[in-house]
């Protein structure tokens, strides 16, 4: 991505960039079966079809770091490394560039948890809150019993104690 800022990339370059991007977001949010079947970020349309300009804006700084600050071997094959190795590379970069990592992670979280597929995977309804709203059970106000038994705890206006 760093090399492509000043000219339109070829299709091959664009595919490589996209592959690198998807390997990055998969590293940030991989798939999991721990809390239901949660997809990896790289599986989502929100990332697979992110416009190039937006991708450069959001992920360009981190991808630049990966491409320029990591060993040659890792740089050439970042996308083909396993998740643990990719995560180790990013964490290594994060020590000196926490704001770059933080920015990319924040934007990934926003897009990921804004995705319909993820909302449904969490067991939530993928719909606007309005107009359907949500049901809340009626409260059993017997819980207030101990408080109702309290004496007043406020201080009256000085000079108006008798009025209270």
């Amino acid at each position, binding site marked *: 991505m760093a090399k492509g800022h000043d000219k339109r990339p070829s299709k091959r370059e664009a595919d490589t960039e996209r592959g690198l991007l998807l390997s990055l977001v998969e590293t940030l949010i991989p798939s*999991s079966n721990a809390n239901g079947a*949660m997809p990896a970020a790289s599986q989502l349309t929100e990332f697979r079809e992110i416009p190039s300009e937006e991708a450069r804006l959001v992920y360009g700084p981190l991808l630049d770091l990966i491409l320029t600050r990591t060993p040659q071997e890792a740089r050439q094959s970042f996308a083909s490394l396993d998740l643990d190795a990719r995560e180790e590379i990013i964490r290594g970069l994060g020590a000196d560039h926490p704001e770059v990592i933080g920015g990319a992670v924040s934007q990934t979280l926003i897009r990921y948890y804004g995705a319909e597929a993820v909302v449904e995977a969490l067991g939530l309804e993928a719909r606007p809150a309005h*107009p359907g709203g949500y049901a809340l059970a*009626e409260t059993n*106000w017997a*819980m*207030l019993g101990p*408080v109702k038994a309290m004496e007043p705890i406020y*201080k009256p206006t000085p000079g108006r104690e008798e009025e209270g």
Partner: protein
Amino acid sequence: MTRADPIDVLIVGAGASGAAIAWSLAETGMRIVCLEQGDWPNPSEYPSTQRESEILQLGPHSYNPNTRRRREDYPINVSDSPISIANYNGVGGGTVLYAGHFPRFHPSDFRTKTLDGVGDDWPLDYEKLEPFYAENDRMVGVAGLAGDPAYPPKEVQLPPVPLGRVGEKLANGFNQLGWHWWPSDSAIATRPYQGRDQCVNLGPCMSGCSQGAKSSTDLTYWPAAERAGVELRTRSRVREILVDDQDRATGVIYYDAEGNENRASAEIVILACNGIGTPRLLLNSKSAHFPSGLANRSGLVGKNLMHHPYAYVQGVFDDPLDSYKGPIGCALWSQEFYETDSSRGFHRGYTLQSSRGFGPVTTALMGLGNGRVGWGAKHHDTFGAYFNRVAALSAICEDLPELHNTVTLDPELVDSDGIPAPKINYTLGENSRRMLGHGAERASDVLREAGARDIIVQSPLPNAGWHQLGTARMGVDPEDSVVNEWGRSHDVKNLFVVDGSIFVTAAGVNPTPTIQALALYIADQIKTRLANLFD
């Protein structure tokens, strides 16, 4: 273009107080015009009508005007303040984005000097304001429960907002400790009320209520005021107030929607622009008679800015709480620590307010910020342990008036009409710091007692400058206050201020009911004194 309207009363600002005083004065038959820099809000465009509501709240529907950056939003320089400002510029003002928490002040709040030796006594008391609190409650429709031992007797109009699992957890914690708690007084229609539909627990009240159940003044006072003949001009931003050689306000200069400069003349000018907008306008209204800003012979315009510093404490529980369902800020409160107890190491006190949780996007971002949610291989485990498992308490602390906390004019920053914008200089006082610490500890006690396995404290909450108070304080002494005991400027006898800037002290509760009760009280004073109003 100059307009020569024969206006009797010109109100600047259509928020909480501007709406209330417009409605109350309408019965006089006077020609009343309100100028509002923003537009009517459109509830069908509020984020909760969109599936991406959480994302919208991060940008165009943020409660931070510096993030929102709409045409009608004036920028605010907060580089010298740990607390940034939250507001809404449009019909309804801050009530469009408030949580709907609707507590009155306590009697002691009007007598802090007498009772505790701090702040100053107000030139009126709870008993004088009580009929106007009650009138405002009826207009708003307050949900709650009568009998709270933390208050003198008062009525509510509607049943309380359900506690939900979050509120029940917290209530159990308070009961275990033997501490006071009570269902919040809420400006939320829990049943149909005066043409408004009832709450359906959408959740994000603080980005506008699409249901129309939350009592913002675009839905409560304004329809009634307009029916009574008040004219509301939107997208009309006032640049300055004009005065004559006799120190009488003659009207204002404002910009309309097209950016044209207009002049509106009036017999009475009323400012209802909040604790930042009002001093900004007064300081922008310099003249030969008022070289330091209009109505500022005391030198106190823009001084004594008070917020409510918040300590926000989350408890993370093992079981799911459905915490994203229901009004986010309204379930219960505790005023166990409201009145002064010198053994605590600070004066005055605070309210503990419950807060429900957030949707997945906000939860993930908050978790990233506080270290509870990670990325990489551990992401899903950490997110799963946090999302939908949070109940929170906020300590809303009484800030004391301090001269060095100010609103001034920024030397460079301007709004979209080129009008100088405000700058905030604010530091937390030692009393507020101690109170925040105490509040965070007591909130943690409740959450632990309720079964929380993890406690997360954020204090002071940085994006919590919802309440801007004290910058044109009221009082009987012109040397020590900007307006008198019924809201009229000491220096300009046909100029009134009715918003939160006239507060003498801040109390430890949300200010909107008191702002509106004061506006109704001042309206009553104007109506009573019409024959000699300017004497």
